[in-house]
Structures are given as structure tokens and as C-alpha cells.
């Protein structure tokens, strides 16, 4: 009797477990694969805005995208923007975390919150507006300060500087995220390790090289990969910063191109094809890093 109750309970537990897994898979299918499937489906058609009529085009939208210089320009801008801002955020965020690491725990957390809260609560539209104002060639505080020091006018929105400005703003906006992640991994280093290296007469550089860096390395790599993907798919900051003029056409990343194709030209099929290619590229990048890590025996 007791055995049958136990086996019944085990069966129930298994049912609950596998039922839960099944529910997660179904939700996953609905939330991820169905929309992606629809995107791929639309990318194979001539679907346009304000119309339900369309025809099957096969891979024509993909071929057409490859033939357009705008596609390649968008891809180049995406790579520049994503890698540039990812490096900026990772370096700045890590430096911030290391500086914070020297403080007492309570102070460190308080400062971390001060840095992190703006990341959470300042919407892109306000941040971009703020920076556009600060770098205004006539009345911006930054340009006026540079003018006072160097005697030269600086045009941050000029073609030579606009991408650097965009990367700079994105670095400013998202570095606190990196700081939080790296800071957390520093906190997790056992204090014993610091004590050991101190007893051995190690200097700060040795502490960093032998204790801190090995501990935070995986966190930096992980957060850098995450930021790279997030920046490659970023739309709001470049769109708001570049405006709808020529700067957007010349320096806009692929997300801006997708927006233009879908919402300004109503070409859903072509926009979806570019979207699918972007999705596949990011998927490949992520899996390459994951595989590389696995081969190296990392996590």
C-alpha cells in the first residue's frame, strides 16, 4: 500500500515535472518560434503595407537586399556601432567596477545604485535629447567648453564625428549595466585569495593579474557578448540621435534600414528579409562564441 502510494506520488511528480516542461516548450514555441516563423514566411512574399494581397517570391527579397548598397552600408554601420559601443561600455563599465571595488561594501553599493539608477530610469529619448543639447555647436556646454580651451568649434554632428558621438552616447548610457555585472563578480571573489597574495608580498598589479582578472574574465566576456547583441539590435538611440535627415541614411545601422523599409516604404517582405538575415547573423555570432568557449573548456 505504502509502495503504491509512493510510486503514485513519483508518477505525479514526474507528470508535474514533464507537464511543466511541456508548458514551457509550448510557450517557447508560441513566443519565439511562431513570430520568427512568421517573419521568415513574410520575407518570402511580396507583402506590402495597407494590403492583404501578396505573392510568393521565394528568396527574391534576399537577393534584392544583397544588391542594394543601403543593405551593405547598414551592415557596416551596425558592425561599427555595435563593436565600438560594446568595447566602450565594457572598458568603461569594468573600470567603474574596479574603482568601486576599492570601497567598503556599503559605500560601494550606494555608489553603484547612483550609477545604475539613471540607466534604468532615463529613457533613450531624454538621454539623446540631453546629449544633442550638450553637443550643440552653438549653445552646447561641451562644445563651448572645448571652444574655450582650444579656440576651435567642434561639430559633433559632422560626418567625421557623428558615429563617434553616437558610440560615445551609447557608452555613457549602457556602461552602468556592465559595471553592475562586473562589480558583482568582484564581490564574489573570496577575500582569502587577496589575503594569500598579500602575504606573498604581491603588489596591486599582481593582485589584479592573478586574482581579479581570472575571476571577472568570464563575466566580462559574457556581458560583452550580451551588450554586443543588444547594441547590434539597438534602434531607438541611433534613430533618435541621427534624425531623419541624411545622417540617418549614411550612418544608420540595419535596424534603421528595417524601419525605413517597413514603415516608410511599406515593404514588409523586404524588411522581413533584412530582419531574418540580421537574426541569423546574430545567432551565428552567439553560437560561435558559445562553441569557442566550450572548446576552450570554459563556461
Amino acid at each position, binding site marked *: 500500500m505504502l509502495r503504491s502510494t509512493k510510486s503514485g506520488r513519483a508518477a505525479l511528480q514526474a507528470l508535474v515535472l514533464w507537464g511543466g516542461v511541456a508548458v514551457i516548450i509550448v510557450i517557447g514555441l508560441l513566443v519565439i518560434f511562431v513570430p520568427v516563423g512568421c517573419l521568415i514566411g513574410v520575407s518570402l512574399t511580396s507583402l506590402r503595407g*495597407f494590403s492583404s494581397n501578396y505573392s510568393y517570391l521565394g528568396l527574391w527579397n534576399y537577393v534584392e537586399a544583397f544588391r542594394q548598397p543601403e543593405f551593405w552600408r547598414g551592415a557596416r554601420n551596425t558592425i561599427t556601432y555595435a563593436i565600438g559601443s560594446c568595447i566602450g561600455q565594457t572598458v568603461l563599465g569594468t573600470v567603474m567596477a574596479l574603482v568601486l571595488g576599492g570601497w567598503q561594501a556599503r559605500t560601494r553599493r550606494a555608489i553603484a545604485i547612483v550609477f545604475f539608477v539613471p540607466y534604468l530610469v532615463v529613457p533613450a529619448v531624454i538621454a539623446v535629447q540631453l546629449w544633442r543639447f550638450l553637443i550643440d*555647436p*552653438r549653445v552646447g556646454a561641451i562644445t563651448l567648453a572645448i571652444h574655450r580651451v582650444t579656440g576651435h568649434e567642434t561639430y559633433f554632428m559632422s560626418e567625421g564625428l557623428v558615429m563617434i558621438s553616437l558610440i560615445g552616447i551609447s557608452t555613457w548610457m549602457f556602461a552602468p549595466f556592465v559595471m553592475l555585472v562586473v562589480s558583482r563578480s568582484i564581490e564574489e571573489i573570496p577575500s582569502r585569495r587577496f589575503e594569500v597574495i598579500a602575504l606573498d608580498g604581491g603588489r596591486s598589479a599582481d593582485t589584479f593579474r592573478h586574482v581579479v582578472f581570472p575571476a571577472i574574465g568570464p563575466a566580462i566576456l559574457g556581458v560583452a557578448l550580451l551588450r554586443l547583441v543588444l547594441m547590434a539590435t539597438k534602434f531607438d538611440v541611433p534613430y533618435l540621435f541621427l*534624425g531623419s*535627415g541624411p545622417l*540617418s541614411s549614411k550612418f544608420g545601422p540595419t535596424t534603421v534600414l528595417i524601419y525605413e523599409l517597413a514603415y*516608410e516604404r511599406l515593404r514588409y517582405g523586404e524588411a522581413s528579409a533584412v530582419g531574418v538575415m540580421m537574426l541569423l547573423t546574430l545567432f551565428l555570432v552567439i553560437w560561435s562564441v558559445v562553441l569557442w568557449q566550450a572548446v576552450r573548456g570554459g563556461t
Partner: protein
Amino acid sequence: MKSQSVWLTHQDHRRPQVSRLPGAGVLLVLILAILGCAKQPSNLVLKVWTTESDPATLKVMEEIGDELVQSEPEIDEVEVVAVPWSDLSVKLQQGFQTGSLPGVTHLEPFFTKAFVDRDLLIPLDSLVQELGPQDIQEAVRDVAKFDGHYWGIPQHFGVSFMAYREDLLARMGVRVPGTWAEFRDASSKLGSGGLPTPVYFPGGDRFFIDAIFFEALASNGGHAYINGLPNFDSPEAVETLAYLKNLVATAPTETWPSATYVEGFPRMVRGEVGFNLFVGGRATKSFAEQWTDQEMAADRIFLPFEPPVGPHGSQGYSSVDCEPFVVINQAKNSGSSAEEGPALENASLAYLRLLYRKDNYLRLMKSVPIQLIPIFKSMAAQYSQTPFVQRWKPWYDQAISMVEARRVNPYFTTSSEDLEIPYLFDLYGSRVITNMVASVMAGDRSAKEAAKIAQRKALAIAEEY
């Protein structure tokens, strides 16, 4: 075992009171919410989308809506929504996808044909006949007339201006230019006189880049389209590109791609700008509000001038702002039911009838004088007596003279007949024209090369239609 039993008894005793009741409550709320969602609203809500963002204009439109609600019991509410014109196509598209299209909306004239072709509008012939087509300014009357039907009625007309600082020009001994050559000279003179931006080109928004190009092309005797096909590599077009490049080269070109339209007003007020290539009538309101010098009246300082004429042209052309109100075909709106659709269309027509009633209409036009000018000739005399219009009379007079002389073209065209072209919407969205102008201005391409590329791309788009 005993303790477990006690624990269970204890819990069983309490659970129905503390856990099930809130659960039942949540379930009841959910059922009621579902029933509430399923219940069809008994009255109509008419949505009116307007590209006018001025609070004074919106207030008048809301008051007209209130009047409609009071006179038509079946209309529950008129909701007036300001949609920036740059977002209009996006919002309409989203409305089409989600079944939440408005009843009445503004459209850009060069969008309208695409909407007609997609059967998204209902004709407004009877309404136009009631208003009297012979009383409507000819330059704007037919901007939404296709296949013999009126699909929209312009809310107003407004003319684009080129503006200058009278005091700055006088101080530097510069005359108001009448030709491109004179304009270049005037600009150079202002630049060499130390003015930071002799000519302000609002290049931060592609709409203005396109508008300035089309105006200049028309003023150089050029045609953007011939027999419905693009004509962007004509000698007139190449000349126009070179002219714009040379004109703006007198100022630091680093700033023009990010220079916004609205930024041009305070910069003129601060005395940094001599000429502004593109301002709407609304600028007068901005100048009046921002100008603080008591000794010199704003309306004597900020003056309009007619677009200078190019070497191949005979007269200058401006753009005409005349967004028509259209009524959405509710059969295409998945959000409105078979019964609701015709009722919404009737409500939309009733709203427009009220809006174009003389008293309401004049009130609407006076909410932003000079920017909003009545399309009805019979109202011109009364409107022109408005104190603000009297104060800024040179602007009003120029608008009237340009419209009456038919020296105005709808945006993105060099002739009102161009509005029949079905691919204008797509061409605008493709940024072919913007990129052509920008690449010349930035020095990336010669005028001839840029025009050739634009022509090839525009032809490819045209061939799809």
C-alpha cells in the same frame, strides 16, 4: 504523523476563508472583464487624426467635436488626436494592422493617390459640391481629385517662404536676391561679413531637403517627372544640385545635416542667420513670441521673399501645404463592424460638414494665422482683417499672390498633375531624393553623378507600378 495531521486539519480549517475567496474574486473579475470586452459599445467614438499640433488648433477641433456630440445623439465622443506628419504613415499603417483606423484623418497630398489605389478612402464629392468647388482656391482644390472624384478636401493652404533678417541685410549692404546668382553673391557677402550662417538649410529632416530641392528645381524651369516617369538627371536638376551645394558652402557645412527646422527660428532671432531657405507661416508666430527687442518690431525684421529664379527658369516657385482631410473606408478597417462602419463614415462626414461651416472654419484658420489660410475665396476678406494677419501682411500677401498666380506646387512635385503618379509615396520613403541632395552637399559625389544614380533608382521604383 500526528503533527502532520494536526497541521493539515489546521490548514484545511482556514484555507477556504483566506485563499479561495480571493481566488474566486479574481475569477469573477476576469469573467466580468471578458464579458465587458465582449460587449459591443452602443455608441460611436469618432477618431479624428490631425497633423496640426498647435494647441489652439486642437482646441477648436475638439470644440467642433463637442458640438457634433451634442447634435448627434448616436455619437458618443469625438476624439481629436494630433499625429506628427512624419509619423502619419506609420500610425495609419499600425491602425490598418490593428483595426483602429480613425474616421477622419489628414493625409499628405502625395500619399493620397496610394490610398485611393488601395481603396482605403471614400469619395467626398457630395461634400465638395455642398461647399462649392468654384469658391475653393484652384491651386489646392484638386490635390485629392483622382479619376473624377474628390477623395479629400484641403483643410487650409499655407505657402512655404524663404525668410531674411531685414536689419542684418541692411547693415551689411546686401539686397534681397531675385536670381540664383544674386543669392549666391548675397550669401557670400554675409559670410565674409562674419555672419555664422548666411543661409540656413534645415537638413536635419529629410522632408525639408526634398521640399527645398523640388522648389529650386521648379524655379529653374525643371520638371521632376515627365509622362509619369522620373526626370532627375535633367540639366535643370543637375544645375539645381550644384546651386544648393554652392549656396550652402558659404556656411560651415558640418552643421547642415543636423540642423532642424524649428532650430532655424531662434537662430534667426539670435542674429546668426541671414536667410532661411524654408519656413512655414507658423514661423511668424515663433518670431513674434521670441523677439524681445522693443525698439524694432518683429514684423519689420523678419520678412519673406520670393524664391529666386534659376538660369533656366522664368519665375520662382514655392511649396503649398494643403493636407486634405479624408474619410477612411471603414470596410477596410477590421476594427469596425458591418453596422458600425457606415455609421462611422456618416459621423466623419458630419464632422467635416461642421468643421467647414463658415464660423467654425474661420475660427480654425485664425488659431494659427498665416500658417492656416482659408481655402475659400469668399472668406479671404474677413480673414485678412485679423489683427495678426494685418501685422504680418507681407507674408499673407506673398502667400495669396503665389497661390493666385499658381506659382505653388504640392510637396514632392513640380506640378500638381504629378500627384496622379502612383509611386510618389514609395519614392519619398526610399529617400532617393534626400540621398541625392545629401551626397552632393557632403561632397561625396558630383551633381551629375548623384543625379544619374537617383534617376536609376527612381526609375526602378517607377517600373514596379
